[in-house]
Each structure stands twice: as structure tokens, then as C-alpha cells.
């Protein structure tokens, strides 16, 4: 049975009349036209659909829209302040942690959640958090470098030497 839902997304209020069991991912993409949260598996395994709900990284493919009511949702579209990128976005750009880019919004939002805990995380905790996500371009070395960079740690410098 359809019901009206009050959603607070990126600081704006929306009223969406829909089935309460419908995944938040579909509502964001189809009703609110926010396509930065993406489908990768639909079963909570890949993290492509991640947004922040009250600051915590949440997989929207397995979150019914009714669970997200009246809670502050931040999608990738709402992370930058105007033209100024969030430091994690900037770090992904600086470290070129993107190939096709499809998984990247989810990865960034996971890192934002991790780093918001305060205090620099250990490499182990970065790996543990980021291993919730799949990047099929397997861009993991750059992703690790980006998160460490954002955390203010020394980035893992690319171990490459160009020789003639």
C-alpha cells in the first residue's frame, strides 16, 4: 500500500508517495533524480548504492524507504560545499582513484563516515572499512592512497619507476 514519506536529502525536504518497502536506492534515483547512488548488486554486498544516513554509510539497496523517513540523508551530490569539494572527494581526485568511476561515490561516502570518527585511522581500519566495497576496475591501490591522503597520513606513493 502506498504511503507518503518525508525524506530529508542533502538539506532539502521531499514528500514521496510510494510503497514503504521500496528500496531507498530506487526512490533516490527514480523519484528524486539523484543518480550518484548506483546499483551494483541489490543485496548489500558491493557498496555502490551507499549514502550517509545521519552520517553513517548505509546501503540503500537493502534499506526500505520507510526506514529512511525524517532522517538526514547525504548523497554524493550533497557532499561538496558549492564548488569546494569535500576533502575526501579532493583526495580521490588527487590520487586519481578512479577508473570508470561507477563505484566511486559509494567509496567516497564510506571513507567520509570512517574519517568522521575522529583521529587518524590505522591502515587496518581503512582496509576493513573499504573492503565493504567492490571496485571491479580493481583500483584498490589508488583508493587506499586516497583514503590515507584524506586521513592526513602519508599517502602510499605509487611504487613505479619509469626507465628509458
Amino acid at each position: 500500500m502506498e504511503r507518503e514519506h518525508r525524506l530529508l536529502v542533502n538539506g532539502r525536504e521531499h514528500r514521496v508517495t510510494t510503497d514503504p518497502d521500496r528500496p531507498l536506492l530506487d526512490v533516490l534515483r527514480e523519484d528524486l533524480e539523484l543518480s550518484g547512488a548506483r546499483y551494483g548488486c541489490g543485496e548489500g554486498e558491493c557498496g555502490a548504492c551507499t549514502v550517509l544516513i545521519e552520517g553513517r554509510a548505509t546501503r540503500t539497496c537493502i534499506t526500505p524507504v520507510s526506514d529512511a523517513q525524517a532522517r538526514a540523508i547525504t548523497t554524493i551530490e550533497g557532499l561538496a560545499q558549492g564548488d569546494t569539494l569535500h576533502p575526501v572527494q579532493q583526495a580521490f581526485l588527487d590520487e586519481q582513484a578512479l577508473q570508470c568511476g561507477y563505484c566511486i561515490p559509494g567509496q567516497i561516502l564510506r571513507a567520509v563516515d570512517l574519517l568522521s570518527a575522529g583521529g587518524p585511522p590505522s591502515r587496518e581500519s581503512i582496509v576493513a572499512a573499504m573492503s565493504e566495497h567492490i571496485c571491479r576496475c580493481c583500483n584498490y591501490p589508488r583508493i587506499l592512497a586516497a583514503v590515507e591522503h584524506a586521513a592526513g597520513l602519508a599517502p602510499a606513493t605509487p611504487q613505479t619507476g619509469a626507465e628509458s
Partner: protein
Amino acid sequence: MTLDPDAADGGELERYELRERLPYRFQPNRRQAVQLLGAGMMLAVSVPVAAQQRRGGGGRGPQRAERLSERFHIGTDNIVTVLTSKVEVGQGSRTQLTQAAAEGLRLPPEQIRLVMADTELCPDDGGTAGSRTTPANVPRIRAAAVAARQALLELAAARWNVPPEQVRLADGQFVAHGDQRVTLGELASDADFAERWSREAGGGPDIAASEWTVLGTTLPNVKGRDSVTGAATFPSDVRRPGMLYGVVLRGPSLAARLQAIDLAPAEAMEGVTVVRDGDFVGCAATTSWRARQALDALAATARWEEPEQPSVATLFDDLKRTAEGGGGGRGGRDARGNPDSAFQQAAKRLEAEYTIAYIQHAPMEPRAAVAEWTDGKLTVWTGSQQPSRVRDQLAEAFRLRGDRVRVIVPDAGGGFGGKHSGEQAIEAARLAQAAGRPVSLRWTREEEFTWAYFRPAGVIEVRAGLNADGGLLTWDFTNYNSGGSALESSYLSEHSRARVQNSQSPLRQGSYRALASTANTFARECAIDELAGLAGADPLEFRLRHLPDGRQKDILSAVARKFDWHSKVRSQTDGRGVGIACGTEKGSYVASCAEVEERDGELRVLSVTTSYECGAIQNPGNLLNQVEGSLVMGLGGALFEEILYERGRILNGRFSEYRVPRISDVPELIVDLVNRPDLPSVGAGETPIIAIAPAIANAVFQASGERLRSLPMKLSGQRTAT
């Protein structure tokens, strides 16, 4: 079937893709055909548009010189738009082609914009496959850009009545005598612009790597900002006014045939369009949720007939049993001497069999398409590596002339050779035709794992022998089904033979990153390691002894230095081992060393060092991404990826059941990019994947004494690696 190795893609696609038929046969739509052709005529066969429409020398059709106007548009905003049929699926083609155009035009990259993969606008450079963009399209676009720059210089010179040599480009403007300045946009509105712009784009002098100013540097991904802000529009993100969401009914097993279905329950649902056309059943609705509910209602009434279907348990027997024999395919390549009698005479012999599982590309974005019909003309936005092939398939499926179909490929979420087909485009178009509104269709992950084609499985037999002084005497290599890429061995042997046997593949199979090179390099490099063992030689020294001088040997030496092979061999402790492997494919060269640890039946890859050489490096940063990505992707195929199926059902068609590499699987990675500015650049998105698996397998042998001869590798008593 012999393939033309010079074709833009044909030489690199495996045979099976060229045989595939359309996934659906739709009933003719009489009204639409009449509209197109006028009353009284009925279009029976679609026009073969491929040959007609291939242009620009990238396709296989007759070559015609392209004009500057087909390749470049100049805007009043001083932006040069470059048109190409190539697609961006994460390999960096958009950025590298931007560099190529900037290099030739001598303009800053910010003044270049690419329109890619639009069959209506772009000259046909062929599909995106076989690592052809770097060696074929970068030089073509660079040379065309040189010609374009010359035309612009002449236009500016004519304006001021000075010789073209006195015109310079500075800060994106044309300048003469210091104070004469004209912008690109102003030049494009000159009266003679159109005439000059109709001149041929080719034939200009190319720019040698030593002269590069934009190529050869790390231009960051030109769409990077859109990626991190969510602004990027992938095929599954495309929105059209009034768009519906579509889903397609799939059978319970791969060969199931629909016997009966009741459409009424779904048709009774509000706002749902239901289509049954031959074997095709699907629905479209205002949300994907509702479409899915309608599909569930349909599925509940469907009756299927399921024939006897194969299971993975008999896969390798099936491949050998159905081998066509007689050498087949590219059989008997590289034949020398008499491998059979030499094998009998050898002082030491190796007979080994290697097996390769089916794996799935599983690009992060599944197949997706948005289709829209306007006045009998069809436009489809879709994630495919082959826009013009998809256009031809749509034309055939809907009995349209090729120029009534437009295919646009927005930068897509991964390909890896897995998106050469266009079934999703046909499905979306059929639903949109019925609904009279645009339809967006995105395969589920389970659909992608089940109905997309797989990387071929294979069996490889090696029979090889050594002479009395431990040298390679004979080499006989037979690949069943997995394909002919990198089939030939680079190792010198008096007697040799390399064959492919085509088999009946139980599953639908197609391209994959580096195709069969991964399988062939795995078998060859593992067997060479075993032969080194039989000869009592160090695996590196044995390889060096048998490789002719050249790039393969150079890259092997490079990785041995970088890894410090000999001292690593000496310093191995119990349960640890190091391995080495090398290979070549599509003109580039790779060598990898791996260090592994085996403890209580668990295998851990501690580090991988890879040296890679692909000629003159065009973008070191993008190259590093491609090499690292290939290596980690290769780790999946080496250690855990494998499609399981039973009686036509895929048993592990989701990420919770099919393990792919995650960040926690990544070992210490050391990548050594060897630049050869003296050599032409070749593509680098594929080849770095081929040497990691055998390097690991050879290291496992040093660590545990066990020879692992399957992909994925399985230690005895232990199914998966950690």
C-alpha cells in the same frame, strides 16, 4: 575461421562472438514498416548497414579519407570538439584521446572536448576492443589534429595576409606580429572556414614521442570531477521525459523454453505495459519496483520446458569430448620439426594438463539501456563496447534501415571485454516500442552473472621434453576451447607445435580482458617452470637461456632486477616461496614475480612485482592505474573466481556467492613501468593481467612443493585461497 589481424577489432575477438545470432526474433511490425517505406511495400530483410556506414578507416569496410569536418567541430566558445566512435569504460580512452588531439592541435587540453560513441555523429573508428585505441586511434586523431592545426594556421594567415609560418598559437589563440590575435571561435566563423574544413584529415606528419608535450605526461582523468561529485551520467543514469522502467522475464535455466504464460494478472496492474513477442516477455512501469512486481506476477504463471543441460562437473570432459579435431582454428601455428618423435627421444619429459574455469566480467555497472522511439526512429543509450554493431543488431531486430537507429554510449561502468553485445538495447527498445514511451532497462546482478557471456573455460595440454644438457628440445601445446591469443611460445625449441581445438562450449562465451592470453600464459609459464625444475635450473636462468634477445627477455630481466630475484630465492624460509613468469600479447610485454606464503593449507600472496613495457608511455598515471587494476583483477581469476553451474542453472550468480577481489586481497604491489619512447605505443588495458597467475602458481610450488594446474588455483584439501 580465419580472422583479419589488421581489422580494428576482428583480429582480437575470439571466434564465438562472430557466430552469435540475434537473441530475439520479433514479429514484423507492419504499421511501422509501412510508415518507413510507403504504402504497399514491406521490408523483408534489413539493410546491411555495417559496411555502408563504416567510415574513417577504423572499420573493415572500404576506406575513405575522412574530412576534418567529420572529426572536429569548433565552437564559438573556442572549444574543439573531437568525434570518435571509441567508448570510455574506465580504461582512460577519453583522457588519452584528448591528449592526442591537444598534442596535434597544440592547444591546452581544456580546449578539447570529446564526443564519443554516437553512431549518428561520430566517424566509425571501430568498436573498443583488442587494445586498439592506443596504437590505432591515438595516432589517427593526433595526425588529424595536425592537419586541423595547419588549416587553422592558414586561415589566420589569410586573414592578416601573412605567410602561415608567421602565425603562432599562444594561450589558445592564434597570434601574429605580437598584436594580431584571433580566437578559434572567430576563425571558425570565417567565410572560407567551411571549405578548408572539408579537406582531408589524414596524411599529415605525425609527432614523434620525443616531441610530445601533452602526451607522455599524466593528464588527470578529464571527467574525474564528475566521478567524485556524482555528476557523471552512466548508461543506467540516463533519464528521458516520461521514461518507464523495464524488466525482462528470464527462464529458470539457460536453455529453458517458455511453454505457456498468462499475461492477464500483470496487464491488470495499473500503469504496466506487458509485452510478449515470441520468446521475449517483459514489462515496463513507472518505477522499477512496480515493473518487478508485474514480472513476479507473470513469472508465477509461466510454464517452462527444460531440456537436459550440462553441469560443471563434466566441463573439462565435455570440452575435450567435443573438440573438433584436426588442429582447428589457428591450428598448428608455429610448427617446427617433429614434436611427436622428439618427445619420444627426449632425455626428460613433461606431460601436464591445465584447466581454466569460466569466469564472469561482472563490470560494476551491469548491462543497461534507455530506448526512445520518435517518429519511427530509434535512439538507444547503452553501455556497449561496440556501438555500431549494436546499431546493426537493432536495425536487424526491428527491420529498420541503419540510419533510422542511433546508438549512443555514455561513458560506462566497466567493460573488460564483457560488453560487446547489445541484448539489453534490443530489450529496452522492444518495451519502449510497446509502451510508446522511453524505457530504461538495467540488468540485475544475477542477470549479468547468468545471461551475459563468460570468459571461455579451457583445457590445455602440454607435452615437452629436454635434451641431455637440459635444453628445451620439444614443445607441444594444445588449447581446447579457451582460444588462440598468445598461443605461441617465445621459448626457443628445436621442435614445436601450438594448436587450438574448438569445442562446443556448454555456456555462452566471449571476450575478456586479454582473452585467452591469461590461460595460455598460465599453462606455458607453469610448464616452463616445471621444465626448469627437471633441468635442475633456476626458473629465471632457464627462461633467459631459451628466450631470444628482445623485449620479452628485457622485461624479464627488468622484473628480476626490481624484485631482486636471486637474493629472494636464497632468503626463502619454510612455507614461503617466490615465482616468476612473463608473457606478451598485443605487442606489449609483461613479467611478474610473486612471493607467497602457505600455512596450514591456506595460501597468501604477500607481494607482486611487475615490470611492463608498452612502447612510448602516453599517460604514466593512467598506465599505472591500468596495470594495477589488471594485476588485482588477475588475482581474482588466479585465486577464486569460477562460475559453477548445474543442469543449466548458474549456482553462484551474485557477489555474495562469487568472490571478486576486494581491497583486503591486495598484496604489496610494486609496478615498474618501462618507457620506450623509441617504440610505438600500444594498448595497456589488457596484457598486464596475464603473468600474475603463473607467477603465483610457481611461487606456490616453491612454498609447498605442490604444482597447481588449474585456474582458479586450489591447494589440495583447501578450496579457496585467503
